[in-house]
């Protein structure tokens, strides 16, 4: 009985591992194990002939990786092109979405009549499921009957009657559609960060005679910058791996200028059944994402972790 008493006193220090088990189990079975399988298949020549018995696919060493790293091979060419597109897409989401979100949040942080309605209104694009907004944008970007083309025609813009969903324009369409549906994410983060800024700080700034712009850059921004860094990193991770938006916007075979990495991996793997190359691409994509992750870890800096 003695040890029980001791335990009672030190109880908080005994780690209740059973709380960890369900989550740990799920992540091991559904994520770690598949990653290990992908690692293995990335070292094999897994294609249509071996798919039925994928364990028997001939071992290819680092041949798939060598192909990817050589931009002259079709796989490598396609990989680097897709990587560039994925990065363009990912950074555009931040570069365009973040300022929009911050401005909107600043606008909503000022009291005015009907503010509650606008606060909600701004969240609607984000709340609309991607598989819906993708289809809406696909329709709006159609030549002739789509709204975008009609609007551009109305103002006699030089880009009127352009095909937005094909060729190099496809990437622009992807970025536009995605910015529309994802900027409220930054708005949300900024708004919540602004709410935790104590009002006294502004009063103090007022006393110093600081003007609106100055107040923002000298007082507000430093206080919310950490939130913005976190929002930016989360957005980066999310968009880099975003499969749904281009898939829904273009259908399975998009213009080569808009098949971002996840979609390209899908096409190589599932459409062409070259799973060896496709899984090698996935592994590399995971490694590439490790950099922003390190950034995120520093930014979050969870206490004592």
């Amino acid at each position, binding site marked *: 009985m003695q040890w029980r008493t001791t335990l009672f006193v030190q109880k908080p220090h005994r*780690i209740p591992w059973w709380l960890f088990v369900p*989550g740990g189990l799920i992540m091991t079975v559904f*994520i770690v194990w598949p990653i290990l399988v992908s690692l293995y298949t990335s070292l094999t020549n897994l294609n249509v002939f071996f798919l039925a018995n994928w364990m028997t696919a001939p071992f290819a060493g680092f041949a798939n990786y060598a192909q990817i790293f050589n931009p002259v091979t079709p796989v490598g060419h396609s990989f680097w092109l897709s990587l560039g597109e994925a990065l363009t897409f990912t950074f555009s989401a931040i570069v365009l979405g973040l300022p929009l979100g911050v401005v909107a949040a600043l606008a909503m942080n000022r009291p005015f009549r009907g503010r509650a309605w606008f606060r909600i209104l701004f969240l609607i694009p984000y709340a609309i499921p991607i598989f819906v907004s993708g289809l809406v944008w696909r329709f709006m970007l159609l030549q002739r009957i789509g709204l975008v083309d009609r609007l551009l025609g109305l103002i006699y813009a030089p880009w009127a009657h352009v095909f937005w969903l094909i060729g190099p324009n496809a990437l622009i369409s992807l970025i536009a559609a995605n910015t529309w549906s994802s900027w409220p994410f930054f708005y949300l983060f900024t708004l919540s960060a602004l709410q935790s800024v104590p009002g006294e700080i502004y009063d103090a700034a007022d006393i110093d005679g600081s003007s609106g712009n100055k107040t923002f850059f000298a007082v507000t921004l430093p206080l919310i910058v950490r939130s913005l860094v976190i929002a930016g990193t989360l957005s980066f991770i999310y968009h880099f791996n975003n499969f749904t938006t281009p898939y829904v916007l273009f259908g399975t075979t998009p213009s080569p200028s808009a098949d971002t990495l996840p979609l390209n991996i899908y096409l190589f793997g599932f459409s062409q059944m070259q799973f060896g190359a496709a899984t090698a691409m996935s592994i590399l994509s995971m490694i590439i994402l490790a950099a922003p992750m390190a950034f995120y870890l520093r930014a979050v800096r969870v206490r004592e972790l």
Partner: protein
Amino acid sequence: MKTTMALSTTAQKRLARSRKIKRGHPWAWAGITALLSVISLIPILEMVVVSLEPMSSVESGSWLPQGWDWSNYGQAFHTVRLFAYTIHSLIVSVSSVIITVIVAVGVAYILARFHFRYRSVLAAAILVTQMIPAVALLLPIYILYANVQTLTGLHLIGSFPALIMAEVSIATPLAVWLLISGLAAIPREMDEAAFVDGATHLGVLWRVLLPIALPTLAAVGIFSFLSAWNDILFASVLTDHATRTLAIGLQEYVSPGGSGSSGLVLWNQLMAGALMSAAPAVAFFLGAQRFLVRGLSSGAVSK
């Protein structure tokens, strides 16, 4: 405001002036608000208009709808099984939110509250797992299910539980991370006090930590709900006729029919269907957004 009361008159005047400056460009702010509102609303209005037009009017590309066709809404339910798909999506998303929150709280509690070797390694590993493209997980997970199904005879592929578990696994790593920072933000003295009062780990979680971290929980819930509701990859192979979700079902409108029926894209019905299928997610999100704004500020981001 207490500070203001204590100010001298000159300071008050200066304050009034600067307040004026701060609010000095109401028109600029109003303009920004109006512009952003228009941008946010245009695609939605376009959806509404197209969903009420006859197909001939959609095809004509005219500005004003040439006639109205309310039957699109009714028709949309017949062309694809919209109602059933909505129910399926709700089952999958709600269940996956509940399970994600439960398992993620457990993991986050361990990582946020206890010291052990390799703790930070473990935490970082959880984040790394989130970096793999979901496309790469699809085939191994399917093979896993198929083997378990063959070995045990359980019906997995095409069942709700199989899809729900896949959605949970996708949502868990981020949920764990949001919760770690949410829980770590709560002063440790609070649970110590509860332990002294004889509380159990569950008791501490349930009565002390989770009520404080409620906004973070809401944020986790919303993100995992959206992730499950939007999933198109896993749902494409893990669902069948009886479990097909909206994200897949809606694609049927734009997918060629198979067996000799390519089918015109019925944009008007598609938009009606799209509006109706967006409604539950929008309602859920807007209902919960209040928590989200607090959740992101109180725990998830700030210390």
